């Protein structure tokens, strides 16, 4: 028995050593989540407008064009659950916070980052924000969060090619997009609609997301913060394809929550004619030009 254990441990030692080394090296790579947390730790008390949400706001709302002290804490696939967890964590530090911008996109109520292709992002909220949102081992280790191939690429890019993994500006807006094979608005419109339309009505998930949205709204009311719910602009190749029931549920929920506590407004920019082809990076995300245009419009709306 002793012989077996010693031999097994000795045999697995090189694998364990490599795994630990990889974990440490991966954690050492500066990333957006760490950067956003560092900004919040240092500047939370000065923030007047806070932008939450997923890639729609991450790509589309640039705090540089706001007249108030604005920070964008959104990230790709970030759901209400994570928005709310960040709010609660920094609640004591938000001394100047007056406005929260929270996008409610076509897919938001059906969103669940824990399932599907983006589930690897959950670890970032545990490891870098310290939010303790998941007890799963894979959500607490870099090496298990992604495949070996992805991790190897990240290590090579950072340590050998000296490429930065940071995609956000200091104020949290995405300055560096992934280069896609195609940004064709027709193709991306079709693909995004397919990806975002719920295959089956998951009532429990929708109710769960609505409950968190209501909690955020109540939290804002308690703190005397204005809640600005928005639906971001999208190109017609996307917006015209959307399932009407899913879209109506999103819009109705946003309107209802905005009116609930007397502290909210809902602005629907989905089919806003001011946004033209050049304003889009793909069918449901704004380009840099579109982000500038939208940020200025939103700033004006907030200041009205």
């Amino acid at each position, binding site marked *: *028995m002793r*012989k*077996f254990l010693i*031999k*097994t441990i000795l*045999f697995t030692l090189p*694998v364990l050593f490599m795994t630990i080394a990889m974990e440490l090296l991966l954690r050492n790579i500066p990333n957006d989540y760490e950067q956003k947390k560092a900004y919040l730790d240092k500047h939370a008390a000065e923030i007047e407008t806070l932008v939450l949400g997923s890639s729609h706001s991450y790509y589309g709302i640039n705090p540089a064009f706001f007249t108030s002290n604005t920070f964008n804490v959104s990230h790709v696939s970030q759901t209400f659950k994570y928005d709310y967890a960040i709010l609660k964590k920094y609640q004591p530090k938000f001394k100047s916070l007056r406005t929260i911008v929270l996008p409610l996109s076509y897919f938001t109520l059906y969103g669940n980052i824990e399932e599907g292709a983006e589930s690897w992002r959950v670890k970032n909220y545990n490891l870098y924000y310290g939010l303790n949102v998941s007890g799963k*081992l894979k959500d607490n280790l870099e090496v298990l969060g992604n495949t*070996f191939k992805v991790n190897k690429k990240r290590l090579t890019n950072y340590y050998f090619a000296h490429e930065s993994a940071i995609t956000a500006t200091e104020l949290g807006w995405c300055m560096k997009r992934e280069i896609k094979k195609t940004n064709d608005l027709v193709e991306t419109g079709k693909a995004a609609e397919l990806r975002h339309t719920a295959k089956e009505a998951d009532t429990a998930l929708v109710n769960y997301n609505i409950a968190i949205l209501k909690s955020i709204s109540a939290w804002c009311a308690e703190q005397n913060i204005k809640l600005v719910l928005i639906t971001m602009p999208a190109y017609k190749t996307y917006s015209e394809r959307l399932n009407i029931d899913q879209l109506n549920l999103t819009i109705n929920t946003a309107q209802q929550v905005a009116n609930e506590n007397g502290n909210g407004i809902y602005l629907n920019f989905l089919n806003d004619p001011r946004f033209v082809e050049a304003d889009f990076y793909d069918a449901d995300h704004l380009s840099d030009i579109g982000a500038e245009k939208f940020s200025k419009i939103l700033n004006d709306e907030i200041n009205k």
Partner: protein
Amino acid sequence: MLFHSIDFAIFVPVVFVLYWFVTNKSLKAQNWLIVVASYVFYGWWDYRFLSLIFFTTLLDYIVGIGLSKAEKPIHRKLLLATSMTINLGMLGFYKYFNFFIDNFITAFTFLGMPIQANTLDIILPVGISFYTFQTLSYVIDVYRRQLEPTKNLAAFIAFVTFFPQLVAGPIERATNLLPQFYKHRTFDYGKAVDGMRQILWGLFKKIVIADNCADFANKIFGNYDDLNGSTLVFGAIFFTFQIYCDFSGYSDIAIGTARLFGFDLMRNFSFPYFSRDIAEFWRRWHISLSTWFRDYVYIPLGGSKGGTWMKVRNTFIIFLLSGFWHGANWTFIAWGALNAMYFLPLLLTQNNRANLDIVAQGKNVPSFREFSSMLVTFGLTVFAWIFFRADNMGHAMGYISGIFSASLFKLPNFTTVGLVATTNMFLVLFVLLEWFGRQDEYAIEKLGLKWKRPFRHAFYYALIAAIVWFGGKEQEFIYFQF
């Protein structure tokens, strides 16, 4: 808890240490530890069905004791019928209820008498087909007086829920596994090392071969309308290797894990793709299920002893049941029927036991005749797997029509040529390792045992590197759904 998850990688060493260091002095304590570990293992997947498995266990434990006391045949039959009705009733409800409702609606509508009926939102408890058959084998063996009923509750619960084989087999016989829970187990170094080797091989089969093949098979079966015939042939071949490596990989990990705890589970696969005819294939594929049907259905029906009609009837019954066991879908029934049709000519010409030995035993290369027979059998198997993989009969027929079209002679259209080449390279390597290890329990059982340690370890590290480096997108084990 999946075998290839980090959860399992932590779970097994913890149970192993408790088993051999804390409870090793008491057989009873070891058995209860297995029970607790098995319930944790099962509950990890879905704790809601723990009560169901406990009910099945308790029922058959009580029926077993009842059978030991009942002397009158009528009482014994009643006890057997109770167990079978409840066990098969639960299996039928969870697995087949919606299938029957759907088909009744279709049938009545077809006859011009549309009926209204609702299907239920039923979740299939993982492993129900496996543990139901395992407990049934116990009750039937006790009924036949081939096995003494047990009064040892811990041993019986451990037998039903033994975690390495709980959710996807091998479907153990009480005559093999149950007595192992009665005996004091001592740690066997050779057995444990062999177990580790088999686990490593199982992981390689599952993660490198099955998961990579799955990626292609899923894409090809999902878009068969847009692909040419030759690509569809590749899709069917990828699925053929996917299902084999997925299921036999699972079995290897199960058997290897059991060996770490001092248990010997029955063999479930014996290099089936080197079979020279379909009868041989069925002696080598999912052995624990095939022999279950043979012993508890085929032989009681008369087996191959009666006249031609009886042989045909029994063969069809056995293959259709086998197909239906896999799932509530006509595709599985079609798969079973097709295999019955492959098998029948061999049975009727009394050639079904022509190939009982290992192909090209003691030789490195098969003869032309052996090679041709293997190729034809493999081709028939690939064709049958199309039904097994298809979502419905329309899908299967569409896929087959796609193959037998003019585009069959065009070059396959793969968008990721590099990945296909890597997967094919691993497939070739895998087939070679299987071929040269076909006389052993599993392909690498004896490979490298006589090599110097650095070379042997280098080979194992190469397998680990392949698992880490070339592992496909994580997929659940196919047989979990059955």
